[in-house]
C-alpha cells in the first residue's frame, strides 16, 4: 500500500518535471519568434503524456497567456514592443476571434485550414527571401524613411524606435498599410476562434512583411497581443470547466521561465537568424494546416501529421 502510494507520488513528480522542461523549451522558442508556443505544447501533452486533446488545448491556451505575459513584460520593459501598434491590431484580432467563434458553426473547418495553409506558406517564402535584407534595411534606414505611410498609421502615430542590440543601432520605423495589416490580423483572430491556433505566426508576418515593421518589433508586439486573444478562449474554457489546474501549473511556470530567458536573448540575435527560425516554423505549420484540411475534408492522412 505504501509502496503503491510512493510509486504514484514519484511518477507524478517525474511527469511534472518533464512537463516543466518541455514548457521551458516552448516558452523560449515562442519568445524568439513571437508566437504563443501552443504548436509545441498541444502535441507534447497529448502524445507524451496521453492527455485528452481537449485537456491539452485548454492547458496550452492558459500557458500561452503565461508566456505572453512573461515575454511581453520583458519586451515592453526593453522598449522593443510598440504598444500603440499592438492595441490598434488587437481591434481586428479580437473582432476576428468573435467572428471566428460565430462562423465556426457555419463554415467547414477544412476550407479555412487550406486558406491558412496557403497564406502561411506564402508568407514563409516571403520571410525567407527577406531574411538577409533585414539587416541591410536597418542600415540603410529603409524602415525609417522609404516606406510610404497611410492615413491611419499617420493619424494614430503608429511609429516608434528601438535599440537593436545585435546591430548596435537605434532603429526608427513607421507603419504602413494599416488596413491591409488589420485584415490579415483579423484572419489570425478568426483562426484562433475556429481552429485553436494562437495566430502569432500570422501577426508577425503581417507586421513585418506587410506593414513595414522591423522583425524584432513585430516579434515583441505579437507577443504582447497574444495574451489578449488567448485570454478570451481561456475564460470560455475556464467557465465551461475544461481546465485541469494540475496540468496547467507546471506548464505555465515552465513557459514563463522559458519566455523570460528567450526574451533576454532575442535582441542580441541578428534578424536573419530569427527569420530563418521563423521560416522553418512556418513551413512546418503550413504543412500541418494543409494536412489538417485534407484530413478533415477528404479523410486523406499525410505522413507526419499531428
Amino acid at each position: 500500500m505504501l509502496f503503491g502510494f510512493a510509486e504514484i507520488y514519484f511518477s507524478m513528480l517525474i511527469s511534472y518535471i518533464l512537463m516543466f522542461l518541455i514548457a521551458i523549451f516552448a516558452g523560449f522558442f515562442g519568445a524568439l519568434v513571437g508566437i504563443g508556443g501552443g504548436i509545441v505544447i498541444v502535441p507534447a501533452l497529448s502524445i507524451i503524456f496521453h492527455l485528452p486533446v481537449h485537456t491539452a488545448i485548454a492547458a496550452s491556451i492558459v500557458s500561452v497567456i503565461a508566456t505572453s505575459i512573461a515575454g511581453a513584460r520583458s519586451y515592453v520593459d526593453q522598449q522593443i514592443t510598440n504598444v500603440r501598434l499592438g492595441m490598434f491590431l488587437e481591434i481586428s484580432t479580437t473582432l476576428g476571434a468573435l467572428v471566428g467563434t460565430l462562423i465556426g458553426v457555419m463554415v467547414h473547418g477544412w476550407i479555412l485550414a487550406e486558406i491558412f495553409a496557403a497564406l502561411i506558406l506564402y508568407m514563409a517564402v516571403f520571410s525567407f527571401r527577406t531574411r538577409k535584407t533585414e539587416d541591410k534595411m536597418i542600415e540603410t534606414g529603409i524602415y525609417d524613411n522609404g516606406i510610404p505611410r497611410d492615413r491611419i498609421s499617420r493619424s494614430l502615430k503608429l511609429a516608434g524606435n528601438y535599440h537593436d542590440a545585435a546591430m548596435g543601432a537605434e532603429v526608427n520605423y513607421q507603419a504602413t498599410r494599416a488596413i491591409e495589416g488589420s485584415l490579415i490580423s483579423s484572419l489570425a483572430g478568426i483562426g484562433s476562434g475556429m481552429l485553436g491556433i494562437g495566430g502569432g505566426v500570422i501577426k508577425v508576418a503581417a507586421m513585418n512583411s506587410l506593414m513595414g515593421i522591423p522583425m524584432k518589433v513585430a516579434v515583441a508586439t505579437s507577443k504582447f497581443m497574444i495574451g489578449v486573444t488567448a485570454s478570451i478562449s481561456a475564460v470560455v474554457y475556464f467557465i465551461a470547466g475544461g481546465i485541469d489546474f494540475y496540468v496547467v501549473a507546471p506548464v505555465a511556470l515552465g513557459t514563463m521561465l522559458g519566455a523570460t530567458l528567450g526574451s533576454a536573448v532575442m535582441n542580441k540575435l541578428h534578424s536573419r537568424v530569427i527569420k530563418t527560425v521563423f521560416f522553418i516554423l512556418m513551413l512546418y505549420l503550413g504543412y500541418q494546416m494543409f494536412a489538417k484540411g485534407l484530413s478533415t475534408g477528404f479523410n486523406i492522412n499525410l505522413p507526419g501529421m499531428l
Partner: protein
Amino acid sequence: MKDFLQPDNSAVQHGEPDIQPDRSEVRFINKIVTIILAAGMYATLGFYLIGLILLFAKGDPKPKISLQYFHSFGAFLSGIFSLNPGAFLYLGTISLILTPISRVLISIFAFWREKDKKFVFVTMVVFIFVVASVVVGMVFKINVG
C-alpha cells in the same frame, strides 16, 4: 508585398514632428503595462508555487477539479484557509487569465490620463470586443471539455 523594399522618395519627409508619437506618453504607457504584466506574472508565479509545494508536501493523489469543484465562494475561501493545493492553483489560473484583460482595461485610463482620445477609443473598442467574445464563446462552446 514586395514594393516596400524599394525606397519611395515621395514619402513624407523624415523627421517630420507629427510622425513619431510623444516620447513621454510612450514611456508612461510602457511603464504602466510593464507594472500590470509584472504584477500578474509574480502573483501567478506565487500562487502556482504555493499550490505545487502544498500538493507534494501533502502527497495528495491527483484529484480532478474544475469550476464545479468550488461550487461557492465560501467553499473556495475555506479551500484557501485549509491550504488546499487545488485552491491555490485555481487562484493562480484566475490571476493569469485576468492579467491581459486588466491590461486592456487599465490602458483605457492610462491613455485617458495622457489625453490621447484616439487611443482611449481604440482601447475601449478592444475591451468591448473582448467582453463580447467571451459572451459569444460561452454561448457557442458551452460543451468544452
